[in-house]
């Protein structure tokens, strides 16, 4: 039954299409008629500001576009041949949902105010040459999106006018792990602008509805990194963030945004060399360590250890913060599941020190030299400091005394005295 219905339906649709276009025939011109004028490459008009606008339409491009099967009047409904200035094309007639979400975006809100240098539909999709996003020639094809957005977002005049991040921030994306994956390696799965910022609903990061608002970032990154998100949700940082602690770190706080790089990339904020500084960005802040009762001096005590010095001088094998504390699954040492819980320390140290036993857990890893935290080290250091100082003073006194004695002897004995004879 179904099989028989198909051709009938198709015929009915074709008849309907004919009926829709033909009856207006007298007023509505066909594509051929439009192209009589618009097929001329030199046709243009002068705008109010003196600039000229080409009115040429590339029929070839139109025909191979997603709308190429239709006719001019589908969009330019009021067109006659010839005609004066036409009414604005409204895509909403067919693409109602897109229009609606666009209206709530930064671009849409400005556009509604009559500002024309923010993109409308055609700004990103093109006009006569619109192609499906899956078509590699489309402006909205995944691998072309960065170039489409950067047409405006790398323009200094626009950046300044709308107080946008400068071109360095934009250029950073192209050098990032995501940018390189799509641009250099041509990977479709790599994040492009719209994956994080959204497409029609794009909003600035400080808007709670924005996909890039702090509270939405883990979920947003988790779209492509679900395994990591799962670990993060269980970590002290993830629980804090979901619990409404806004300063609990989200993905971008450690990894960066447009600058995200591979862990092995020395420039990455999470490379073994940089991670101590990245973690210290919060953990060395007085306010944070006091507010959440965190141990202090983690950075200086680490940098003074063999691990810290080795990492500072480029030995990437040496342990950094994440080697012991974990990465996305960080838990406080009080949690029995934590890699730095006393009971788990031998196992954690054992990742690098194969024979690590219970003695590894007897003593602090971050040695904070103070009477309360490490009395032994503090006392030995104090003893040596006093002992060395006293010894140096006694040396100096002894030397001074000896010289004084010799000088006295020489003076008493005179040049011909006991000393003089020798």
């Amino acid at each position: 039954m179904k099989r028989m219905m198909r051709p009938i339906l198709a015929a009915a649709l074709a008849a309907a299409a004919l009926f829709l276009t033909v009856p207006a025939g007298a007023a509505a011109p066909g594509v051929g008629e439009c192209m009589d004028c618009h097929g001329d490459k030199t046709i243009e008009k002068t705008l109010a500001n003196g600039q000229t606008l080409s009115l040429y339409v590339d029929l070839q491009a139109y025909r191979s576009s997603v709308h190429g099967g239709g006719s001019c009047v589908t969009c330019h409904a009021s067109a006659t041949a010839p005609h004066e200035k036409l009414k604005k094309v409204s895509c909403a007639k067919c693409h109602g949902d897109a229009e609606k979400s666009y209206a709530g975006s930064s671009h849409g809100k400005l556009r509604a105010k009559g500002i024309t240098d923010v993109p409308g539909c055609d700004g990103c999709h093109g006009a006569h040459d619109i192609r499906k996003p899956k078509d590699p020639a489309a402006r909205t094809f995944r691998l072309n999106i960065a170039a489409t957005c950067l047409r405006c977002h790398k323009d200094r005049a626009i950046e300044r006018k709308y107080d946008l991040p400068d071109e360095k921030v934009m250029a950073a994306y192209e050098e990032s792990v995501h940018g390189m994956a799509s641009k250099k390696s041509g990977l479709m799965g790599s994040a492009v602008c719209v994956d994080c910022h959204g497409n029609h609903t794009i909003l600035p990061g400080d808007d709670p509805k924005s996909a890039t608002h702090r509270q939405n970032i883990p979920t947003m990154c988790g779209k492509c990194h679900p395994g990591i998100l799962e670990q993060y949700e269980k970590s002290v940082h993830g629980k804090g963030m979901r619990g409404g602690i806004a300063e609990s770190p989200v993905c971008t706080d450690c990894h960066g945004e447009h600058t995200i790089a591979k862990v092995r990339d020395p420039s990455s904020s999470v490379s073994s060399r940089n991670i101590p500084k990245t973690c210290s960005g919060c953990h060395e802040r007085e306010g944070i360590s006091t507010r959440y009762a965190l141990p202090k001096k983690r950075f200086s005590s680490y940098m003074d250890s063999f691990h810290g010095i080795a990492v500072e001088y480029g030995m990437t094998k040496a342990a950094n913060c994440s080697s012991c504390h974990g990465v996305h699954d960080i838990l406080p040492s009080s949690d029995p599941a934590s890699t730095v819980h006393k009971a788990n320390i031998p196992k954690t140290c054992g990742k690098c020190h194969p024979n690590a036993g219970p003695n590894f857990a007897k003593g602090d890893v971050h040695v904070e030299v103070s009477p309360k935290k490490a009395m032994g080290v503090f006392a030995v250091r104090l003893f040596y400091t006093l002992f060395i100082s006293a010894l140096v003073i006694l040396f100096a006194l002894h030397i001074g005394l000896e010289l004084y004695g010799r000088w006295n002897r020489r003076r008493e004995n005179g040049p011909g005295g006991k000393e003089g004879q020798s």
Partner: protein
Amino acid sequence: MSHADLAAGKVTRMSLLFRIQHLLLTLLLTVLAVTGFALMYHENSLAQWIIRLEGGVHNRGIVHRIAAVLLMANLVYHVFYMLLSREGKPELRELFIVRQDIDDFFQSLRYNLGAAKEYPRFGKYGYKEKFQYWGASAGIVLISVTGIMLWAEEFSMVFFPKVVLDLAIVIHGYQGLLAFLILFLWHLYNVHLHPSVFPMNPSWITGKVSAEWMREEHPLEYEKLKGKGLL
């Protein structure tokens, strides 16, 4: 002691073997100090420059360990030499700290302050030399033990908790600083800047000192040599 030496008024103070041990000690301690303090004071820009000069923190460690092994070998050789050899045994007896050394120390203080008429009369080694010798020896032994503990950290931690290794790092570093200061201030003063030897006591190179210097600074040794008919 050759006749030519006697005629020139020279006395042997350091035999060739002792000079070799001393030279090795000098070179190795310098290398160990440069590589060690660079790590101890790694925040310092000069230290950072030195570490880069040594080819990074990893190579620095290799250089430090090679020098340390040679130094310990030198030390072990020295111990056996002092305990067993014909030259070493009497030398060791000369170095024992005896009651007389303490008396000498106080007498020299009194003398320098003008409270005593006579300056103490030293044998081959006075209290200054003995303090230097035993101080440096004890220091090197302590540095060697802590150094080996830190080098074989996984092995050490089979026996000791981590806190002991934290102490070992502090002791290793500060004991190094102590040894360095004794050698730099005390020893270099005694053998270079002291008025009786300025600019240098040549015995560490030639092995010999003048008989006259011996009579002045180490009269008991001078008399002993004379009594044996060696002068």
